[in-house]
């Protein structure tokens, strides 16, 4: 496998944050999102692909919608007809009653059709969302760490929650509604043409006015909401910052200034909100007014026509048209609303697809062979997280099987990177890493990582019980093995002191236990895997001295018989390491045993001396 980076996480610019940030208000007609997809058709096409085999359901559903609309259009015509024929001209009760029953039948059928089309869509749309969620999640599992370095977790999260919910909004009802709206308008127009051209002209005359007004208001709404969203975003950013930083505000006695600043932002949000909501509110009364105009003309002009030519015009016909004109405006209003929902759904889809288009950088070769333990060789390894900012340059060394290697060097020298490369969390840019002579890129990632036991600088735990967290790396371990491991790691003592022992729930990231205790748990978790390669990354920084001793003890036991890598500042185990690698300025600048390095009197010895000068008195005391 080549080490070249294909079209990958690295070459893509980072995801753009959406305006307004992750905090979103409740959904509703007054929270119109104004964003739209960059490539409307592209996003639509891909989303439609998700309908896949369910296209048939969709087609049937569309067909039923059409039937429902036709029935809905026929209704007022039948009603008008009944009035004209039996309440104005021929007063025949039997025939009238027949018309009433026909009307009832029509409305009942329309109802059933509506239920049918909706029921059909429920499964279809939920399946789509289900699959979308699953595919996105599963895809993320294949992505390498590079991706998580580059993208903000909050942003990925927002795509998989807010954006998918937006898509849900679009597919669940909006396509249906849009279809219904369009059908209704066409159907009503058609019916009016069939019934009476002159009355149609009265209704139609107002259509251009309505369309223009709708377009103007729509534009204004969009502009006003864009500003509003920005102001609301500013406000929530301000809230977030002030609330998270409130301790700082207090310790500096800056309350008054913060209140003034907050009030200003809040006022801006209020004013932008008033504007946006009012512009949006305009829509309904304006449309109502147009509807009144139609009504006035139908009654005035239509009534006059009835008087002049009662053979063609009738009150029943006017009634039909009055009902049509009401039914005409509702879908028009709906379509504008639905259009926005569909737009933001597609914009969301675009962002979700962006995740799915990200290709994993670390991929398994086609003929991957299983991990076999042996010597580990880094040869001429180069690596950079970001282009032009090299972290490692030409690292070469070999670790014999079962040896303990300590890696030291200043912060940011690339110690953790070295270990990230060994676990193939990232791939080297140049050079190779071999275990037992096999390039790790030719190895099955599964077997490679299964053989690693990693204790990270900041161990992560899931919000579940201690037990489940410990067994995370090895589901097959028995209860006895778990106790054994905890004992070995000096963790059993504190676990037994927890309120529910092994069944104690850890809160998110294990915040309810101390950092030292988290380390002990992490070590237990690593022991349970029985790894052939052990990696300890600064496992004891920021821990108080007593617990540090316990950790060291545990680590020493854990290292027995395993190829181990330790990154640390002041572990006693470093002294006992078979070899110490000193990394500085992207290179290994010194290597050797502890005494060799001290004798050499180079960088490491200097580092030592610096500490020594501070503690020489202690040394006298202790020795």
């Amino acid at each position, binding site marked *: 496998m080549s080490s070249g980076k294909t079209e990958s996480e690295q070459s893509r610019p980072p995801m753009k944050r959406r305006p307004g940030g992750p905090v979103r*208000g409740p959904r509703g007609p007054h929270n119109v999102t104004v964003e739209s997809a960059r490539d409307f058709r592209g996003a639509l096409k891909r989303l439609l692909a998700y309908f896949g085999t369910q296209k048939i359901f969709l087609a049937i559903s569309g067909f039923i919608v059409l039937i429902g609309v036709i029935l809905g259009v026929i209704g007022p015509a039948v*009603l008008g007809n009944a009035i004209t024929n039996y*309440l*104005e001209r021929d007063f025949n009760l039997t025939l009238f009653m027949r018309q*009433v029953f026909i009307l009832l039948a029509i409305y009942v059928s329309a109802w059933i059709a509506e239920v049918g089309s*909706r029921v059909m869509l*429920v499964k279809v749309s*939920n399946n789509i969302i289900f699959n979308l*969620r*699953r595919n996105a*999640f599963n895809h993320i*599992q294949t992505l390498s760490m590079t991706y998580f370095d580059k993208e903000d977790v909050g942003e990925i999260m927002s795509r998989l929650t807010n954006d998918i919910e937006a898509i849900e909004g679009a597919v*669940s009802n909006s396509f249906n509604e849009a279809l219904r709206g369009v059908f209704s308008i066409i159907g009503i127009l058609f019916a009016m043409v069939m019934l009476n051209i002159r009355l149609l002209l009265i209704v139609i005359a107002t259509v251009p006015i309505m369309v223009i007004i709708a377009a103007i208001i729509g534009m204004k709404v969009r502009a006003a909401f864009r500003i509003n969203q920005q102001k609301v975003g500013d406000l*929530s950013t301000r809230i*977030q*910052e002030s609330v998270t930083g409130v*301790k700082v505000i*207090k*310790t500096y*006695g800056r*309350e008054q200034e913060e209140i003034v600043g907050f009030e200003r932002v*809040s006022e801006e949000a*209020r004013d932008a*909100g*008033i504007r946006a909501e*009012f512009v949006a*509110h305009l829509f309904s009364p304006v449309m*109502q*007014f147009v509807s009144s105009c139609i009504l*006035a003309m139908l*009654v*005035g002009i239509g009534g*006059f026509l009835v*008087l002049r030519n009662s053979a063609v015009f009738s009150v029943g016909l006017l009634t039909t048209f*009055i009902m049509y004109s009401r039914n005409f405006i509702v879908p028009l209003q709906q379509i504008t609303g639905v259009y926005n929902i569909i737009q933001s759904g597609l914009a969301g889809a675009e962002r979700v697809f962006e995740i799915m288009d990200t290709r994993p950088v670390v991929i398994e070769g086609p003929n991957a062979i299983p991990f076999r333990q042996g010597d580990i060789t880094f040869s001429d390894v180069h690596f950079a997280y970001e282009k032009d900012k090299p972290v490692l340059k030409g690292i070469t060394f070999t670790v014999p099987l079962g040896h303990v290697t300590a890696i030291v060097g200043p912060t940011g020298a690339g110690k953790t990177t070295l270990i990230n490369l060994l676990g193939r*969390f990232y791939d080297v840019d140049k050079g190779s890493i071999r275990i037992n002579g096999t390039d790790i890129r030719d190895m099955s*990632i599964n077997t490679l990582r299964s053989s690693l036991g*990693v204790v*990270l600088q900041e161990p992560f735990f*899931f*919000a579940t019980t201690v037990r489940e967290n410990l067994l*995370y*790396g090895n*589901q097959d371990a028995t209860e006895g093995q778990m106790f054994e491991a905890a004992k070995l790691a000096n963790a059993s003592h504190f676990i037994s002191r927890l309120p529910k022992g092994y069944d104690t729930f850890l809160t*998110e990231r294990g915040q309810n236990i101390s950092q030292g205790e988290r380390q002990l748990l992490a070590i237990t978790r690593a022991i349970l*895997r029985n790894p052939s390669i052990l990696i300890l990354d600064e496992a004891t920084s*920021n821990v*108080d*001295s*007593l617990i540090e001793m316990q950790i060291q003890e545990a680590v020493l036991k854990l290292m027995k018989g395993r190829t181990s890598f330790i990154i640390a*500042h002041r572990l*006693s185990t470093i*002294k006992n390491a078979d070899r110490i690698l000193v990394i500085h300025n992207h290179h290994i600048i010194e290597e050797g045993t502890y005494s060799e390095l001290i004798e050499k009197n180079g960088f490491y010895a200097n580092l*030592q001396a610096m500490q020594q000068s*501070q*503690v020489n*008195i*202690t040394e006298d*005391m*202790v020795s």
Partner: protein
Amino acid sequence: MTNLFRLFAYLRKFASFMSFALIFLAISVVLNLTQPKLIEWAIDSGITAGIVRNLVVGGVGIFLLGIVGNLANLVSGYLFIRSGQGMAHELRGSMFRKVVSFSFINFDKWRTGELMVRLNSDVNTVRMFVRMGLFMIAQSVVMIIGSVIFMFHTDVRLASIMALLMGGTLAFSITIVSFLRPLFLKMRAKLDDLNNTLQENLAGAKVVRAFNRQSFEKEKFELKNRGFYMMAVKIGYFFSIVLPFMLFIGNFAITLILWVGGTEIIQNYHAGTTGFTLGQLIAFNNYAMMAIFPLIMLGMVLNFISMASASAERIFQVLKEKPGISMPENPVLPEKIRGKIEFDGISFGYGEGEDAVQDVNLTIAPGEKIGIIGGTGSGKSSLASLIPRLYDPRKGIIRIDGVDIREYNPIELRKKIGIVLQDPILFSGGIRQNILYGNPEGGESVAEWAAGIAQAMPFIDEKGWDSSIGERGTHLSGGQRQRVAIARALASKPAILILDDVTSSLDLETERNVTKGIYEKLDGMTVLIISQKIQTIKMSDRIIVMDKGRISGIGTHDTLIQDNEIYRKIAETQDEFIH
């Protein structure tokens, strides 16, 4: 519910707005309801009677009603919007002032996420309730009462039927909504569950990969995803049946009117009597179209009430919270603080359980440099946090320059004390802005001086003084954030400086330079440095060793090594590296 009424206290400022909003809304609804009456009149006395003039009058009348009615609606909507937004602004302001008045005791109780939700979405929910909820409730109520009156005025028998139908619709709508609410809550819970799983997976991405558990994670997610799906489908089916039924009720009413009214017209015609007219039939037809929809909406809106009421409750919980530390009646202004600190029999605890600080007596001279060391939970940070009154002690008195700190104005007192907490929080903006946070008038020279001592100049030179550091300083490394936080405290030129374990992310050399600068360049400033590392505090004038909330020893490094068991133990473990 009571919380919702308490909201009206915040609406009081907008009382005139709200009353006009309601008046205009009523006008608009009544005018709308008059339209069918005019249609009836135009048909009966225009078409049936054959008088063209009446038709013209009817048409123009409907047109005028349309203009005035919708203008009234527009005004009413505007007033509702203004009141809602205005109230939201007031509520936010009150809550914000409250949060800022909280002491650290309050913050231990409230999580920041909680407070943010209350300031943001809860206020929004309440605002939407005023804007949409009250608007719709008022509209529906006027519409229902009005249309019933109008209908009874037109024809009693049909009106009774319609009133029955309308009552039934409202009852149905309310039933459905109350049935749906628990389902919705369940669905929301499933979604939260799903999203939590997702969040954890993303946050623990490295662990998932290191332990090779992708397929386990996929299964876990699949399960949650399936759970949500089932719930969503269930609710979807329910809606598919109920929503069209509501629309059907409207159509059914229209059919019913045609049947009953039409039959009467035909019978009257054959009997040669007068009574129910064609115009009245059409009027009823229009009422049915107008009145049923608000009833359906009213059911939905009633659901809003419980949501808004829950939000209002959460808001008032914040507003009710009493600040843990209050302003004294006649606060002393700390003019010139020299920096003498006395702890006199101080005990302090965070609620239940053992006290974190027990019976501490200590006097610190002005300008003295003090180091505090001890294991986790030894009470070091707690002791320091009492000085700027982040907490008040349970027992004992703390004096600064001989004055009980409870007599000072706490805000002014804190301005004289620079404390850097363990987890440095920075604000978005530039580095300069952050360093000068406590001393905005400080200017270039102060910022540079502070950054110099905090060893921040190398990376400031590289990044620039005004480059954005991102939200909460995310563009900076942990060590850089700590140095900016130290510089920020220095730049406010405090009389007393407290550093609570703030050099943990710095490498050895930088850390040494920072502490050296603080010890050597801050003449006259009382400094307390808290650390777990001996080398950080070794140069202090005096070192205080804390253990289980008590002072176990006071002295210099040299004397403590000899007489203090705990100090010696700490030294041993930390110096092991050397051998």
